[in-house]
């Protein structure tokens, strides 16, 4: 008999670890959302007092921005799709009963949890949390006297992200080895579900990106505490102190930007790639269609990953980069629009005249498509250096990445939750539960309306010139004050929309809690899916002896055949031959 502590807390079971990651992400997304609401409220009502805190000071606002960005990017958008659903679903989808390295898997989770604790506790150290944003540009991040939070708070930020990078690398190795070594018989590369291709590509990117990030963090730590000058130039004068004596070398802040964005851009693809794969699979599932151009979708997934490591310079067009280099990065960035467009076209063709089933998971997948289009189209605009010169660091950029990365990413997570809830709640000998579809549909419509109402107007305030990271829009002196004041009416609307969007998520929590205890019992394969996570022997409710069953795959996923009046569903494990009937 395993003790409950071993079973639920220090478990090496991939399903338990997957749930642990998802709980961690849910806690993180709740905190991150509340922080963003504080920011939105402060921007339009700056004199409001926060209970138990007092007024939000400029350094508080920047700490909110920094922790919001860090927590959402690392602990929600990286953790939940890649590690949460990656653990929960990935092994079964390739016909494996476990991940390749169960102990490393648990170590990776507990390191991630430690990283989160370090990050959150930084708010209690003298000076509070770091205020230099999630990109932490030096010398601002390298010199403790550059601002409150840049002392102990910044050290804790560095420590947190370093631990996270180690955890992410371990997890990525585990994912890659699992996919390469543990595929079941017949699971050839072109039969691997697109979700698994998303996890695979994201894991490849994680290894490349996190190792560079870890090196950069180490260099920055040395600049802060070991007297090196990787990122601090000679004669740098912060708060009246010249850093010549303690930092004799002549470093370059731009070096950090290169290293950071070499990590930072792949990072956003790590966040979205699993969602891209899931969307393809769910649209096909509920449309009862094959994924249009399946092999091309595999190629575009890999191509997005490959191009994703070649375009970090588009974050640096106005940072002091050589203007010729800006042109090169503009071309590589524009190039990624082509595989991304290919994905959208495949989705549009897959659902075209399919009369799909509008389950909540399907609605969120369609929402993903909509957000990916709307948020993605501003990418090529920002990729043009001459336009980025005007738009860089305005709310236009904030709107862009919140739609394409944050909202699309979250919609992918919602789709995954509604779709795989029966598997998440099942255990050996016990079938899982369905989430409430009625609450789910309401949640979808409120969320997509709230998402667009919040982030579409940000394009306009950005075009009006509103910069990011401004703690105040009211009471700013000079002509700038007039420019910022002009954005206030729209900003008030955005704040109300954000409050609505956040409140709408209570529907999700209500659904989660209700369905966990009272949800309808789920049939073995409730969505008539074709992928292996619904295989009777790989299902979490399979008896223990199922672990010895030989799993064999005979076909690509999503082999749905429509004949007149009758639908034929051929799961990947089905041995039936495709009947030779003429399509309708």
């Amino acid at each position: 008999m395993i003790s409950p502590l071993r079973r639920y807390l220090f478990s090496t079971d991939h399903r338990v670890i997957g749930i642990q990651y998802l709980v961690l992400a849910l806690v993180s997304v709740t905190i991150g959302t509340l922080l963003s609401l504080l920011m939105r409220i402060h921007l339009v009502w700056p004199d409001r007092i926060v209970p138990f805190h007092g007024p939000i000071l400029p350094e508080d606002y920047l700490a909110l921005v920094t922790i919001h960005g860090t927590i959402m990017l690392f602990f929600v958008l990286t953790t939940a799709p890649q590690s949460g659903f990656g653990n929960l679903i990935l092994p079964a989808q390739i016909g494996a009963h476990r991940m390749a390295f169960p102990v490393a898997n648990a170590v990776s989770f507990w390191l991630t949890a430690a990283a989160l604790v370090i990050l959150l506790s930084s708010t209690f150290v003298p000076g509070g949390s770091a205020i230099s944003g999630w990109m932490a540009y030096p010398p601002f991040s390298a010199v403790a006297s550059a601002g409150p939070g840049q002392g102990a708070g910044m050290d804790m930020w560095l420590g947190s992200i370093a631990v996270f990078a180690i955890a992410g690398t371990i997890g990525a190795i585990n994912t890659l080895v699992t996919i390469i070594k543990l595929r079941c018989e017949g699971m050839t590369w072109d039969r691997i579900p697109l979700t698994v291709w998303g996890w695979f590509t994201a894991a490849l990117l994680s290894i490349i990106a996190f190792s560079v990030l870890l090196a950069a963090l180490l260099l920055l730590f040395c600049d802060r505490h070991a007297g090196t000058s990787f990122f601090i130039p000679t004669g740098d004068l912060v708060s009246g102190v010249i850093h010549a004596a303690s930092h004799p070398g002549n470093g370059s802040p731009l070096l950090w930007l290169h290293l950071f964005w070499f990590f930072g851009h792949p990072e956003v693809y790590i966040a979205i790639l699993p969602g891209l794969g899931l969307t393809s699979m769910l649209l096909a599932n509920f449309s009862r269609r094959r994924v249009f151009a399946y092999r091309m979708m595999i190629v575009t997934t890999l191509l997005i990953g490959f191009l994703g490591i070649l375009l970090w310079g588009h974050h640096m067009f106005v940072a002091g980069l050589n203007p010729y280099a800006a042109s090169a990065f503009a071309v590589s960035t524009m190039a990624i629009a082509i595989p991304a467009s290919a994905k959208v076209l495949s989705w549009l063709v897959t659902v075209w005249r399919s009369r799909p089933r509008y389950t909540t998971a399907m609605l969120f997948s369609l929402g993903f498509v909509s957000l990916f289009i709307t948020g993605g189209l501003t990418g090529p605009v920002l990729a043009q250096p001459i336009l980025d010169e005007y738009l860089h660091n305005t709310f236009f950029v904030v709107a862009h990445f919140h739609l394409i990365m944050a909202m699309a990413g979250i919609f992918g997570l919602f789709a995954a939750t509604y779709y795989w809830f029966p598997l998440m709640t099942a255990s050996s000998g016990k079938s899982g539960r369905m989430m409430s579809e009625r609450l789910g549909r309401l949640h979808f419509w409120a969320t997509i309306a709230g998402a667009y109402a919040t982030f579409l107007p940000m394009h306009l305030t950005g075009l009006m010139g509103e910069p990011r990271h401004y703690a105040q829009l009211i009471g700013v002196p000079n002509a700038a004050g007039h420019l910022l004041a002009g954005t206030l009416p729209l900003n008030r609307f955005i704040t109300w929309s954000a409050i609505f969007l956040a409140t709408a998520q209570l529907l999700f929590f209500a659904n989660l809690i209700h369905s966990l205890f009272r949800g309808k019992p789920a049939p073995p394969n409730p969505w008539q899916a074709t992928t292996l996570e619904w295989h009777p022997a790989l299902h979490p409710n399979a008896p223990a002896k199922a672990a010895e069953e030989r799993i064999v795959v005979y076909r690509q996923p999503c082999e749905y055949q429509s004949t007149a009046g009758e639908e034929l569903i051929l799961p990947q494990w089905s041995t039936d031959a495709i009947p030779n009937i003429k399509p309708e």
Partner: protein
Amino acid sequence: MIPFSIQPGTFALSLATWGLPFDASVHGPAVDRHLLLNLWIILGLAALAHLILLVGLIARRRAEATSWRVEYLPLAALALLFAFLTVRAERLWAAARYTGADPAALQVQVVGEQFAWYFRYPGADYTFGITRPQLVDAGAGNPLGIDPADGHGTDDIVTSELVLPADRQVDLRINSLDVIHGFSVPEMRLKQNAVPGMTIHVHFTPKVPGTYAILCTQVCGLGHYRMNANLRVLPPNEFAAWLAAKQKAVQR
């Protein structure tokens, strides 16, 4: 109170310009045209894609499409469209950034520090004096650390507002004393980070006299939001008078 001469419609949100602020530079209108072209194109594409999605969802079920054309033809069209936009943008970028300023351009140094912008004019000798960080002392009137031992520095003019003549190219050399700042003038469609340890040149020509906002667009500390200054563009004769008065004050 600083007098403003805000252009009509500067901050009004108008549909035709998508809320863009007034454009007061020579190179700006071409940038605006290209930006607006981009915005209308992506608005059209977003509408088209959503329309296809909606029609596809509403229309009666039919056998699935199998022709490769539905994927590759639109993809080829999009690739051509993106290539066209890239080339068009590239020409504007090359014109703005590939070559240095006109040798006759007005020389001004822009220096960012937490949380202020300073502007330095080289004075009658057209040469900037040497600066040393050890000498920086804003309280004593030397915020940039100009070395008094260097004769070129004695006639340098340091201001906290950027004053420029209309219709004359200006060559800005931008740097920072402490951390990275973002030098941004929305109404001039100009933005360039100020990086400590680097001097970065950008050049442009203001066209319409008026008072415009200079912002910091790279988070630099708790005073980031209030790190701004005014750009005052004057008719050439007024600028000459302003500069002469400043020079006289320095030489005194």
